């Protein structure tokens, strides 16, 4: 088999994000850390930063953050702050907090009360995509731009933002192409591999990232998988998954992750930014209105049925196009945003004739062992006799 350079590179970056980031710094890059998929990386990039999504580490017990955050909050953000307080993100040149969910908002505030960086901004993000909200969000992006400009002492031109938009649009299209390759059965690339690529992209300079995905696509296309046993095809939806321990466990239990509806995945790479005369407008629309995450309220419409369609119809096409046999609803404990969705989402998906497994997990690799039985039983439930 030909050497799979791109996939290997992605796996390496995934395995040690911090080393990869430090290498970038040694090459003279400045790095801007940010939370969640609601921060327009185009702006950070146009200001000359490499955007790096701040993630936690499921493999490391939270010790330091206990003094700053209560135990009953989202363990993902507890882990993020824990790493921050332990100095893992000390190399950041800028920090952009965001109001994605309560967890993101409060941790943004606590983060900057204790950790100082040369450039800091908190991006308030409305919960609705009403017209006024879009205008407001666009203005907030303007403030982000101004704060970045003030820090670098350099104006960011509209043209520069537009250039970044087209580079990132290209990245998003490439990732979608990679996703499409999984529509065939068996898929030539595993959920674990795709996750490694996605995580790597969340901290690479955009052009480097684009080259990486191109390599990966070529490598995956070159694969000639032989006949493989039939396995059920899974859509993963809900809270973010940033660790291959989860995809690995799922795939070990006889399931294939073929599609996702999560923050490090289709929510990040799902939609393009439309070209608009003021690029901030296109950005505001894409980030606030187009990303479908339950943290943004959708108008309820005239009836419950209509409400459910507006909130979940996109999953229907995921299920059809990726020939999904079952859905895994991934819930990180204490996540309100996704927790309130579970009964309705389950009801909706089961209405489409797709079985659903909803599991609450603690964002800890050590705590995954008990999930094995659930995944295995779920696989057996769907087994095609």
């Amino acid at each position, binding site marked *: 088999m030909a050497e799979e350079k791109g996939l290997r590179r992605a796996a390496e970056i995934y395995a040690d994000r911090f080393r990869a980031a430090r290498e970038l710094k040694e090459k003279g890059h400045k790095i801007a850390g940010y939370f969640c998929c609601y921060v327009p990386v185009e702006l950070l990039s146009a200001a000359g930063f490499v955007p790096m999504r701040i993630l936690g580490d499921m493999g490391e017990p939270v010790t330091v953050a206990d003094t700053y955050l209560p135990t009953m909050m989202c363990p993902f953000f507890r882990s993020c702050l824990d790493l921050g307080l332990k100095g893992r993100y000390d190399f950041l040149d800028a920090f952009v907090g965001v109001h994605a969910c309560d967890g993101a908002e409060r941790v943004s505030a606590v983060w900057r009360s204790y950790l100082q960086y040369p450039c800091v901004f908190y991006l308030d993000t409305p919960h609705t995509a009403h017209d006024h909200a879009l205008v407001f969000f666009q203005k907030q992006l303007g403030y982000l731009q101004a704060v970045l400009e003030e820090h670098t002492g350099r104006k960011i031109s509209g043209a520069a933002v537009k250039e970044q938009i087209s580079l990132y649009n290209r990245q998003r299209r490439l990732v979608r192409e990679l996703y499409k390759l999984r529509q065939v059965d068996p898929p030539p690339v595993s959920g674990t591999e795709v996750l490694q690529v996605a995580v790597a992209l969340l901290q690479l300079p955009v052009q480097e990232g684009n080259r990486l995905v191109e390599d990966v696509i070529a490598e995956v296309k070159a694969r000639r998988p032989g006949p493989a046993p039939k396995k059920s095809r899974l859509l993963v939806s809900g809270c973010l998954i940033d660790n291959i321990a989860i995809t690995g466990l799922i795939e070990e239990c006889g399931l294939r992750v073929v599609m996702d509806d999560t923050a490090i995945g289709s929510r990040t790479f799902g939609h393009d930014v439309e070209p608009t005369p003021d690029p901030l407008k296109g950005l505001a629309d894409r980030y606030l209105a187009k990303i479908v995450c339950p943290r943004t309220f959708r108008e309820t419409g005239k009836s419950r049925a209509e409400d459910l369609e507006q909130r979940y119809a996109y999953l229907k096409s995921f299920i059809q196009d990726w020939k999904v046999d079952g859905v895994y609803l991934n819930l990180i404990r204490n996540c309100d945003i996704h927790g309130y969705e579970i009964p309705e989402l389950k009801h909706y998906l089961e209405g489409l004739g797709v*079985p659903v497994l909803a599991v609450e997990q603690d964002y800890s690799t050590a705590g995954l062992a*008990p999930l*094995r*039985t659930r995944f*295995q*039983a779920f696989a*057996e*439930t769907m087994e095609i006799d």
Partner: protein
Amino acid sequence: MFFAGIDIGSTITKIVIREDGGRQVALVRPTGAGHRRLADRVMEEALEQAGLTFDRIAFVVATGYGRVNVPFADAQLSEITCHMKGVNRLFPGVRTIIDIGGQDSKGIKVVNGKIGSFVMNDKCAAGTGRFLEVMADSLGLGLEETGEMALVSRSPVSMTRICTAYVGQEIVLRMSEGVPLEDIVAGVHQALCGRICSMVNKIGIEKEVVLTGGGAKNPGVVKYMEKIIGFPLLRPAEPLLTGALGASLAAQDLWRKAAAEGRAASPRERTLAPVSFFQ
């Protein structure tokens, strides 16, 4: 043709060896620290009882907590599937299965002989058989005694959501306050059943309901379970065995399928090896 199911539970190891349409041998042994690596011995013991040698067994399915590393098994299946198959064989009308094991408890919804949906608790010991064991331990009594004791109480104390680690302390406090022992014991049973019921409620509790697992052997559990659910429950003659029985039934199905596809292993290729380690 003989088929075997081995259910290595957290607390108890169970084996069923069945002949297609014929006789059946079952064995129940504690899983305890020393026995873990001795699943092969337990199997040997069962074979001896059945008067068989290992090469007579066409297919072995392992299930339960320790299923992952039973080298002599031909396949492994989750307890959920196995319990469902086992119970469904014994009670074809079953709609809901409640299984109370030593380290986890589950609810399974059965739809046309298949798993409709399931729920499981393995996070907190307070919803499992451990809860009762810890209680019995701290009283210096056996599970049989406490189970019977729970039956005579007229006013069980309420202690709904209490952690297993603290149940001992709670009991001492209550006893020092002068609460009759049987009311405390009954309260613990009631608390356990309440927890399990509200979990199983998530998939809906519909008639017929079958109670399995070690918990089903406890009359106190049965009483309070029925009280909370509001109608009588069915119980297999030996509730511990449904998982192993289901595994042996699955063994037969899987063997047939493999045979039909021409890839059934010849029994001679398999040996009875010690269990290596557990996840």
